[in-house]
Structure formats: structure tokens, C-alpha cells
């Protein structure tokens, strides 16, 4: 086994001392940071006067950015729940035994690429939401003054329910059925139930930038309109 190869070292004093140094360094950083920068504090809360723009803290700015493209129940509820649930089941759906406990890109390309895509998407949305959104949540590049007036957005339209349903069915159907048909061995690796769950989650993830693209390129507001909810 690989285990016997790796040499062991005592925690005391080497690792303990390293940790001690890390703690001291972090404490110094935090104190200097705290001395140099004040935590933000605006005027007292006033229910009748909204901040413009009203921004979420940076770690939620990505979700807030999604509000532009999705209804609140999707951006604020469904997407976070699916992300958390998807993360939780990763160990149970990724049955690839390679790369356990080491940096191994070549043996787990599929997992690493998809995870990094989601990871970078999350940070990209945070960047746009936090740095590029100005008054009325409109796009301002960093060097543009928030004083410049932006024209209001284009007229938006939605696909008819039938076409929307077909589009969604084709997207998920093709995404799930094509890889095994093209004899990519993902299907064999995961087994049928795991394969469907994996592909559904991954397709849902890619659907987010796809919807953003449809909105920006073709002014599509909803892909599917029903009387209960809109996607």
C-alpha cells in the first residue's frame, strides 16, 4: 500500500510550532486589518427609504446576481438548496476510486472539470454582482461613475409553453442520453441511477449560464411559462 511508503513525523514540536506561527501571523493580519479599515456602517435602518443599490454581503452577491435572470424562488431558494444537496451527495455519486487523497487531475478529469466550472461560475457571479452592479442593479464597469444614467433594459419576451417544454425536454434528454449513445464510458463507471443523478445535477448547473446567455443574447425572460411558476 501507498500508506507504508509515507514517512511519519512527530506533531510535537514541529507541527504544533507551525500552527503557533500561523496563529500569530493571522492575529497580526487581523489586528492590522482592523486598525486600517472600519467595518461598513451606513445610516440607521429606514424602512421607507431603500438603499440604491441594496447589495447583499459579497458571499451572497452571486445569488443576488441570479435574481436578474431567475425568479426569486429559484435564485434564492431552489439554487442554494440544489447546490447544498449536490455537494452533500458528491461522495456517494462519485464512485471513481482514483485520486483518493492526492492531487490527481488525469484520473478524474470529469469530476474536477465540472466542480471547477461550478466553483468559478459562483465566483464569477459574485464578482459581477459585487463589483459591476450599480444603482438600479444596472451594469457599471469599475471605471464608470455611478452618476451616469443608463438606459432601461430591452423588451423581454418568453417562449410559448409548448416550445419551452420541448426545449427543456430536449436539453435534458439529449444531455442524459447522448453520452452513453456516443459510447462514452461514464455510464458504465457510475451505474444507471447514479449516472442519471450526476447528469441531472451537471445539466442543471450548465443550465444557469445557458439561461443567462439566452437572456443577454435573445432577451428571453422565461423559457417555460406556466400558470403556477415560470422558469
Amino acid at each position, binding site marked *: 500500500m501507498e500508506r507504508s511508503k509515507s514517512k511519519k513525523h512527530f506533531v510535537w514540536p514541529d507541527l504544533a510550532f507551525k500552527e503557533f506561527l500561523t496563529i500569530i501571523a493571522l492575529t497580526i493580519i487581523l489586528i492590522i486589518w482592523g486598525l486600517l479599515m472600519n467595518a461598513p456602517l451606513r445610516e440607521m435602518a429606514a*424602512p421607507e427609504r431603500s438603499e*440604491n*443599490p*441594496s447589495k447583499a454581503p459579497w458571499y451572497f452577491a452571486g445569488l443576488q446576481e441570479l*435574481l436578474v435572470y431567475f*425568479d426569486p424562488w429559484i435564485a434564492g431558494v431552489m439554487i442554494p438548496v440544489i447546490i447544498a444537496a449536490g455537494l452533500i451527495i458528491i461522495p456517494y455519486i462519485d464512485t471513481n476510486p482514483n485520486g483518493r487523497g492526492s492531487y490527481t487531475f488525469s484520473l478524474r478529469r470529469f469530476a474536477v472539470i465540472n466542480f471547477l466550472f461550478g466553483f468559478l461560475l459562483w465566483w464569477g457571479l459574485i464578482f459581477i454582482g459585487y463589483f459591476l452592479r450599480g*444603482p*438600479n*442593479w444596472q451594469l457599471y464597469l469599475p471605471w464608470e461613475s455611478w452618476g451616469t444614467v443608463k438606459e432601461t*433594459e430591452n423588451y423581454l419576451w418568453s417562449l410559448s409553453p409548448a416550445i419551452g417544454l420541448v426545449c427543456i425536454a430536449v436539453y435534458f434528454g439529449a444531455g442524459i442520453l447522448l453520452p452513453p449513445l456516443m459510447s462514452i464510458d461514464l455510464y458504465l463507471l457510475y451505474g444507471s441511477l447514479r449516472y442519471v443523478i450526476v447528469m441531472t445535477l451537471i445539466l442543471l448547473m450548465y443550465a444557469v449560464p445557458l439561461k443567462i446567455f439566452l437572456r443577454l443574447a435573445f432577451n428571453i425572460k422565461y423559457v417555460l411559462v406556466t400558470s403556477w411558476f415560470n422558469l
Partner: protein
Amino acid sequence: MTEHSLNSNVTRRGFLRIIGWGSFFVTLGILIGGTMRFLFPRVLFERPSTFKAGFPHEFDRKDRADENGVFEVYEKWKDEHSACLVREKNRIYAVHVKCTHLGCTPNWFADDRIFKCPCHGSQFHSNGVNFAGPAPRPLDRFGISIADDGMIVVDKSRVYTSKDFDKRGAYLNV
């Protein structure tokens, strides 16, 4: 279940086990339910839901209506009660100035005759009907009526969404 099958299938030990675990889970369920119920208070100490907005003649129509048939939007009660009184040709209604997207407070721009929401850029006409941004429906309206002393009373506990705008109580004929 017949008496016979009861006698033959359930031993005394099994019966006591069912009773024991049953009462354990029933008690647990009651505790959890009670804890949940605890989180929903019976009485709320919120601001009174009605306010008197003034006499109808204080909201006389101005010289000219805009393209939505609105003569004037009165902002007098916006800060205190987040309501704007809107005067049309022969009726008055109270618009709840709270964005139907995510609850921010839109600002009234009298020159453009538009309510603009600062949070996500929804825009509404002077009569509260949405025309841009993510807001899904027009601004809600509060119940409005005339009190015994002839003043206009706005009842914030009665909220009318756009499908009920023509119902009695959502507007006041003047």
C-alpha cells in the same frame, strides 16, 4: 383485526415494546410540534394597521391627467405608512409602495411620473402598474374608505392585488 390474531401474533413483550416506543415517539412528536408552535406568536406588536389620510377635498384633482389617467400622486404618507394616495378622474386609491419583486421601497419620480425600485430596477407607472424590471405584478393597493367624520381611512391590513383592483374597498369614488 380479530381477537384471535391479536392473541396469536402479539406477545406481551412485543406489546410492551410497541407501547413503550409508541409513547416515546408520540411524546417526541408533541415536543417538536410544541417547539415549532412556540415560534409563531399569537399577538404581534406592530403599528396600527389603519390611518386617517385627510379629507377627500385635500386630494383634489390637478389640472391635467397623465397618459395613465392619473391626476396626482400624493406622497404625504409614504414615509410613515409606505402608502401613496393616487387621484384619478373620479376615484382615489392607496398604493402600497413596496416593490412586488422583493419588497424594497420604490421612489416616486414626479417629473418622469414613474415609481423606480432601487434594488433590482423594477419600474411602475403612476397608477402602480409595472412595465419594466423583474416585478411580477402591479403595486398592491390598501383598503380605503370614508370614516364617520368624513376623513379618508386607509386600512393596511386589507391588501388588494391587481386582480382585485375593481372590487369594492380597493378604491373610493369621489
